[in-house]
């Protein structure tokens, strides 16, 4: 018998007939009728008129029939809410049925009925099912809580279901544990700041046990949940890793990748000298490679993640180059990703193979892929110096094919190769010039023009070549116009006699006939330079250029670290933190890798930027203690992580250190190593929490007597990176003047003299207001404290993050570079109090998209205390009111560059030791909000 019979009859009066059949006395007939109804429903016919008749069939002990009726209910309850109430009684009854299958079926269906009116009636049955003796019912009920939460979150909270769900994490049945974790994760998704998944060593143990026995989907939830936990030390990290590694052999790729995430994250805590560390590295490669034999969609996601993994730990896959070779029938999205990873893995050892492959790809059919392959050859040349020559000759071969887009790509990358290896491959210029006419893409034209200008003295007919471009000057894109202008000026400086006319022509085209301000500005600058001081012009225009860096598209290390915490998620596919794209911007929760426990390695950062790279050339943040501090601040927002004991904190602590020691003994906590103030572990008991902050209050009281809050000095430049010079420091603001308080320690064996300091351009134009004065030579083991006054009139360039400051320090030994993050409140000026009316108007005027919301937790201060604390750091309270028992403060502050930030601070006095401050910030430049919030947090918690 086939199923098609249910779909056939379409004669008139069908509904009527069905109604009669549904009310038949014969069980079989009833069942057949319900099946017909469901069949009609699935093809889209309206059979809602039969609602009462179908619901009548519900009271049966035939499981099959019951399932069908429930299916019907789920479909029509939404459109017939009043009638759906009729079914409630049966639900309640079914939830007490002796057959656990029926109990589970009832509770599952309840969750799928998205009708507000009904949900209330379902709470009691659900509560019973959550405590059912049968695990199958409990696990179904756990999921039902998440479904109910989606319909009515308040109801779920009021009924205390969340607590019951938390209890289920300790259930004896692994499936129940897995579903409870799944439900809690789902709910936590809409409450990122809630402490739903509060993990401790006991619950972790439960999860690890359940991990071995639950379904594949449950494993994914559990692993993702584990990844949010921060083990207390390297031992715990290792033992979790050991229990997670078997998951790498799972057939489900999502399980594998979630396991990889946990391992990548916890590995961070293991010392590299450990045998286990090496074992783990070896174990990670095979499963990653296996992912590449799965379906193409899975491969794509896997490749995006592998791209992150090879940047973080290239050693894992360094021998697996071949699996990334492209097959001609791979989908294009897989091909492009594989190519990217091939370049990342390219090294001297495998470059010959890689090049042979790339050359093969460069003759394929797909244009996008071919272009990327050609570009990849150029990147190989820049990355692996020994291969540069071979790469260049490969590129020349490709140029000979005369395939238009291949030639253009080749020229673009050859320009980069010239920048990387000056005076080495210029012999190929002649070949390039032959292809001048075929270039029709702006990027290739611009690259070619750059080459002609740069090497004008070696190209006999450089003037003719450039002149040929000049004819259609106004039709060119801006990129080409700018290059042409520069190239001709270069040519003129090199061969002034014969090119005077040409240069005048281009200058007048750029300045008089162009509408583009960039082009005009550049034209005027050159013009003025040439007319006032040709020697200076030569020095400026023909200055030696810094070499371009090895790899241009590496992900910035702090972002990379964050993304490693998001392996397997959408963030890992987009290579952006979730806060950058998840709807509603709830993603303020930043994740960060746990710090390594061994102190010797704590200062070691994922090294990418060569230490000698001049600031300004690379926007890379060289991660320093400053970043670490930033991460800790962020951590506090996340799910409660018991403050990881940082071996390095003692260095940062400075003044607070002493206090920390005292505290430690006061509290007597087992693993509380006084962390920097911001990382007060939320898991500490309430009385301790308040006691702690009282003490911190004291310290801040001392600190604020004369100005803004001053963070303890942190090590910015460790001695091992600066030939024995250790620099630690902090920023202060006192009565309107900013200064950088430095502490220089000579840890080398020779005397240091001739100190000087310089800042790179930064977001707020911070610059030294006076030279660095170190009066006497610094002898070995000597330390000096210097306060360097700063102003904000330096040149401005937007940095990422905004408060990043790159500093160069020179002494008689060498020049050293480091970067640090300054707290934004050093930029809050003294006249930042806005007029009341003005405040109201401005608040309204700034669009709502610019409003950012933050929470400051564990800040047991009342409105007055908050107000006065903030005022000492130039955040001014303009008005205060009390709404429904909550204090609202309206505040303003102004940055040194004149940006106003308006704030509404809501103080929710709950439990006195656990107050939450809601901070809304409005500003015309919303990118500062995050940093202002951090400043608030820092000031209030210190």
């Amino acid at each position, binding site marked *: *018998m*086939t*199923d098609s019979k249910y779909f056939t009859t379409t004669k008139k009066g069908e509904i009527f007939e069905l109604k009669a059949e549904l009310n038949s006395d014969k069980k079989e007939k009833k069942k057949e009728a319900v*099946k017909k109804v*469901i069949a009609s429903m*699935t093809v889209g016919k309206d059979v809602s008129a039969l609602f009462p008749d179908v619901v009548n069939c519900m009271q049966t002990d035939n499981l*099959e029939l019951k399932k069908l009726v429930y299916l019907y209910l789920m479909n029509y309850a939404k459109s017939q809410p009043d009638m759906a109430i009729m079914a409630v009684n049966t639900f309640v009854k079914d939830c007490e049925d002796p057959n656990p*299958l029926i109990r*589970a079926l009832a509770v599952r269906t309840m969750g799928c009925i*998205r009708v507000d009116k009904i949900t209330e009636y379902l709470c009691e049955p659900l509560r019973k099912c959550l405590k059912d003796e*049968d695990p*199958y019912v409990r696990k179904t009920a756990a999921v039902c809580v998440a479904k109910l939460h*989606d319909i009515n979150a308040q109801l779920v909270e009021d009924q205390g279901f969340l607590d019951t769900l938390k209890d289920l994490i300790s259930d004896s049945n692994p*499936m129940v544990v897995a579903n409870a974790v799944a439900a809690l994760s*789902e709910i936590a*998704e809409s409450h990122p700041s809630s402490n739903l998944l509060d993990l401790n060593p006991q619950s972790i143990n439960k999860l690890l046990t359940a991990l*071995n*026995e*639950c379904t594949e*989907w449950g494993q*994914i939830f559990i692993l993702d949940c584990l990844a949010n936990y921060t083990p207390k030390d390297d031992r715990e990290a290792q033992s979790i890793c050991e229990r997670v590694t078997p998951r790498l052999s*799972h*057939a489900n*790729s*999502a399980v594998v*990748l*979630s396991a990889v995430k946990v391992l990548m994250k916890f590995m961070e805590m293991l010392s590299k000298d450990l045998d286990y560390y090496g074992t783990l590295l070896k174990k990670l490669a*095979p*499963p990653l*490679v*296996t992912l590449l*034999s799965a*379906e*193409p*969609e*899975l491969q*794509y*996601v*896997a490749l995006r993640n592998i791209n992150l993994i090879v940047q973080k730990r290239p050693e894992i896959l360094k021998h697996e180059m*071949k*699996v990334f*070779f492209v097959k*001609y*029938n791979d*989908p*294009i*999205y897989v091909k492009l990703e594989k190519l990217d990873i091939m370049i990342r893995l390219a090294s001297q050892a495998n470059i010959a193979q890689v090049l*042979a*492959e790339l050359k*093969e790809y460069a003759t394929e*059919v797909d244009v996008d892929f071919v272009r990327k392959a050609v570009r990849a050859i150029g990147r190989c040349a820049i990355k692996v110096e020994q291969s540069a020559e071979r790469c260049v000759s490969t590129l020349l071969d490709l140029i000979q*094919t005369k395939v238009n887009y291949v030639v253009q790509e080749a020229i673009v990358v050859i320009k980069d190769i010239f920048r990387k290896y000056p005076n080495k491959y210029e012999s190929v210029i002649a070949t390039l010039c032959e292809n001048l006419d075929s270039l029709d893409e702006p990027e290739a034209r611009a690259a070619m023009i750059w080459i002609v200008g740069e090497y004008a003295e070696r190209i006999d007919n450089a003037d003719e070549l450039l002149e040929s471009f000049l004819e259609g000057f106004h039709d060119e894109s801006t990129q080409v116009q700018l290059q042409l202008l520069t190239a001709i000026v270069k040519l003129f400086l090199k061969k002034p006699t014969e090119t005077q006319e040409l240069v005048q022509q281009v200058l007048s085209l750029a300045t008089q006939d162009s509408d583009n301000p960039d082009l005009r500005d550049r034209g005027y600058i050159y013009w003025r330079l040439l007319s006032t001081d040709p020697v200076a012009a030569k020095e400026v225009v023909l200055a030696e250029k810094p070499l371009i860096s090895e790899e241009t598209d590496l992900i910035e290390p702090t972002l990379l670290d964050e993304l490693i915490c998001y392996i*397997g*998620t*959408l*963030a890992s*596919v987009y290579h952006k933190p*979730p806060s950058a794209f*998840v*709807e509603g911007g709830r993603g303020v929760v930043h994740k960060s890798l746990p710090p390594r426990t061994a102190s010797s390695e704590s200062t070691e950062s994922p090294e990418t930027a060569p230490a000698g790279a001049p600031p300004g050339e690379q926007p890379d943040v060289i991660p320093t203690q400053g970043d670490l501090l930033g991460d800790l601040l962020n951590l506090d927002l996340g799910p409660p992580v018991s403050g990881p004991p940082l071996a390095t904190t003692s260095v940062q602590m400075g003044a607070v250190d002493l206090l920390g020691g005292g505290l430690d003994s006061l509290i007597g906590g087992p693993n509380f190593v006084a962390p920097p103030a911001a990382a007060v572990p939320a898991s500490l008991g309430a009385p301790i929490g308040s006691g702690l902050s009282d003490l911190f209050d004291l310290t801040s009281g001392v600190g604020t007597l004369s100005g803004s809050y001053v963070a303890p000095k942190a090590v910015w430049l460790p001695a091992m990176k600066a030939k024995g010079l250790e620099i630690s420091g902090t920023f202060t603001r006192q009565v309107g003047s900013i200064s950088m308080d430095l502490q220089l320690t000579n840890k080398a064996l020779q005397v240091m003299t001739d100190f000087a300091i310089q800042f790179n351009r930064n977001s707020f134009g911070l610059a030294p207001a006076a030279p660095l004065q170190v009066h006497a030579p610094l002898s070995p083991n000597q330390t000096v404290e210097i306060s360097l006054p700063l102003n904000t009139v330096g040149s401005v360039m937007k940095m990422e993050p905004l408060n990043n400051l790159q500093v160069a320090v020179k002494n008689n030994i060498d020049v050293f570079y480091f970067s640090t993050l300054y707290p934004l409140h050093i930029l809050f000026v003294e006249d930042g109090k806005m007029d009341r009316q003005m405040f109201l108007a401005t608040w309204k005027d700034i669009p709502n998209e610019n409003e950012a919301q933050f929470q400051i937790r564990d800040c047991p201060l009342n409105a007055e205390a908050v107000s006065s604390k903030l005022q000492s750091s130039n955040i001014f309270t303009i008005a205060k009111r009390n709404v429904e028992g909550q204090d609202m403060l309206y505040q303003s502050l102004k940055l040194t560059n004149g940006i106003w930030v308006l704030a509404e601070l809501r103080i929710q006095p709950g439990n006195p030791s656990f107050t939450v401050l809601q901070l809304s910030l409005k500003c015309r430049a919303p990118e500062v909000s995050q940093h202002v919030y951090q400043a608030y947090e820092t000031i209030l918690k210190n």
Partner: protein
Amino acid sequence: MIHSLFLINCSGDIFLEKHWKSVVSQSVCDYFFEAQEKAADVENVPPVISTPHHYLISIYRDKLFFVSVIQTEVPPLFVIEFLHRVADTFQVGSSNVGDTLPTGQLSNIPWRRAGVKYTNNEAYFDVVEEIDAIIDKSGSTVFAEIQGVIDACIKLSGMPDLSLSFMNPRLLDDVSFHPCIRFKRWESERVLSFIPPDGNFRLISYRVSSQNLVAIPVYVKHNISFKENSSCGRFDITIGPKQNMGKTIEGITVTVHMPKVVLNMNLTPTQGSYTFDPVTKVLTWDVGKITPQKLPSLKGLVNLQSGAPKPEENPSLNIQFKIQQLAISGLKVNRLDMYGEKYKPFKGVKYVTKAGKFQVRT
């Protein structure tokens, strides 16, 4: 998690939709269609697409797109794996309005229902190995690996507990297991110990990649050339057996995507038959099996569009073949033991080796 699911056929009709939460309008699929248009080929539609309010995660299976709509940060692999399972279910099946609906399972072992009963108790295993390889112009191997699986068909009553052991388990160092397998036993004894699910399932999949272990069973001699300034070219390929372990190679098919400028092909096969589709430019040669006495070849002329420049690149050859009763890695099952039940089951193991993505560059 997954908010909604749309099933879309090749001509772009949304013929099925399912909403787990609130209803998401079909119009969200427009973003998908847009991406599809851009991709030119259906297989090239990117699997993750972002739209202003949702993310679309899709798979392409059997000429159908399974497009899921996501609203929160979820693991995309979770979704893709799930979609493939949905596709698997559809493949197996007729509509689910059958005469008997599957009942829920209440068993201590999640993957096996309780109370299974058969009159004939059987346990069969298929060891299937596929060779993925890229062979370069000169015939040397650029890349080769074996993707193997052991599929099981188990029809055993009660709660049987099986142990499967191998003659040479060391071959298996990169393995993915069905959750039923006890990992510890494998780690310590290299024995697959498990209580099997009922029916058909994939027991393990594995990868053998160290190059010296991967035998390449066929070679191809080829001579494909296009003359400059002429509207024809030559095509000549011959297939022969290489490391085939004395077994017959059968089911050979050669597929070639010829360059766009090829108008037609005039070829003569010494065995089998060939077709050339002038629209898609795909040449398919159905060879059959190799008899070493007379190697199969296919040669003749290629007609090119006159006046067009000669193709830059020779096409890759895609080879399919099959070798019965052989696992090319050398993997061999030693024995299967059953504990926990008293009856004597029928047992059987079959081996087969196939070409996976087997490409020869010319």
